[in-house]
């Protein structure tokens, strides 16, 4: 009934799901129905038809990302409050921060660009870390209230717009360009900006949204519906 490739046949979908005690899932990439095997630690399952990652099983999906989120939040604050780099030429000096850069763009007549930089470099990563902090703290004692699901969804929407790694490379290119014209010095913020992409990537790897959803109370306290063919 359940092929080695994980595909399900029409009349066996429900039986397969209940026999393995694992819910059936449809691949988000190609809609193929399949039953996920029980995953060992650090395992990853891909869809046999389209190759999309269907499930991951990080070793410790709550405490580890929580610790990383706290660390990343501290680093983000340092990156935003200390100068990223300084410049000295002919006896004059200048320095800048992330939001200082966005504000300069704004005041130079590029309000939209300034806003975009502020969102991608500070607001989106900040809100993402804040929501993750709330979600991960709340699910430590299941069942978690439904607002955890709402925050998790918002964090998912914010994730593509948090670009600390792109900002870091942008900073380095700007440093090299300006170094042609003046003496540039790296500030504390630059080191914090260097650590941030590493921490955010570590959160993404150690985190499993599925593990959170399993601990969230269903809207209206329904029991899981039977997923059966008509």
């Amino acid at each position, binding site marked *: 009934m359940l*092929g080695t490739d994980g*595909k*399900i*046949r*029409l009349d066996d*979908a429900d039986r397969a799901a209940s026999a393995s005690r694992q*819910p059936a899932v*449809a691949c*988000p990439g*190609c*809609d*193929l*129905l399949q039953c996920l095997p029980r995953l060992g630690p650090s395992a990853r399952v891909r869809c*046999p*038809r*389209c*190759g*999309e990652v269907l499930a991951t099983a990080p070793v410790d999906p709550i405490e580890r990302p929580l610790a990383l989120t706290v660390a990343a939040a501290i680093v983000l604050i340092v990156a935003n409050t200390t100068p*990223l*780099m300084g*410049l000295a*030429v002919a006896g*004059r000096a*200048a*320095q800048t921060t992330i939001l*200082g*850069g966005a504000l*300069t*763009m704004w005041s130079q*007549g*590029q309000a*939209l*660009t300034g806003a975009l930089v502020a969102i*991608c470099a500070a607001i989106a990563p900040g809100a993402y870390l804040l929501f993750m902090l709330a979600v991960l703290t709340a699910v430590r004692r299941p069942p978690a209230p439904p607002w955890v*699901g*709402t925050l998790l*969804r918002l964090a998912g929407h914010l994730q*593509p717009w948090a670009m600390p790694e*792109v*900002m870091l*490379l*942008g*900073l*380095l*290119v*700007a440093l*090299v360009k*300006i170094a042609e*014209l003046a003496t*540039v010095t790296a500030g504390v913020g630059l080191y914090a900006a260097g650590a941030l992409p590493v921490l955010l990537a570590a959160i993404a790897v150690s985190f499993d*949204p599925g593990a959170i*959803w399993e601990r*969230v109370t*269903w*809207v*209206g306290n*329904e029991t*899981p*519906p039977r*997923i059966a063919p008509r």
Partner: protein
Amino acid sequence: MTSAGLTAAHLGLTTCATCGLLSRPASDTVPGHCPRCGASLHRRHPDAIQRTWALTIAAAICYIPANALPVMITTVAGSATPDTIMGGVVFLFTSGSWPLGLIVLIASVLIPLGKLLAIAWLLIAVQRRALGGERARMRTIRLVRLIGRWSMLDIFVDTFTVALVQLAPLMSVQPGLGVVFFGAVVVLTMLAAESFDPRLLWDRNPLESTHD
């Protein structure tokens, strides 16, 4: 992959786009809400083709002024020099930092152009109900979503250069109008990649119309 497989659509089931729960919608015409998280259910992303085309075409239009207009204006001792994106690339190449020049060339010129072409190719494939090559198209959409954000690079370079080099009258840098169009290209192509529904690529598969 020609062996029989069954999709959620076959069984009239819908995956929640928010929490991933597979459930039976209230009805085919009004799918209702996910029983777990309460989000609206959609069998496929709503109006995926139209929305993705609209965002892609808007991005393609913005791509022209983004490259033609200056992104930075450098003023040294009273004389102003406008720089386009390609001008910035040429500056990096000629000033000896060709590896950085190459990175900016890829991130600012090739990635946005490649994204526009790739999304258009995927949309045409869905509309023509092209058979075969679904796995290659799947790899393409995953790549577009993965590397799309890197085209923000030039926006950050311009921002930090402008923020730091404000030493008028000695030397100062102002942002040019090109930068806002370039930002629009990045945002619009990212939204287009998200609004596209990869399941549409597979719905054209004969698998969809066979029941065994």
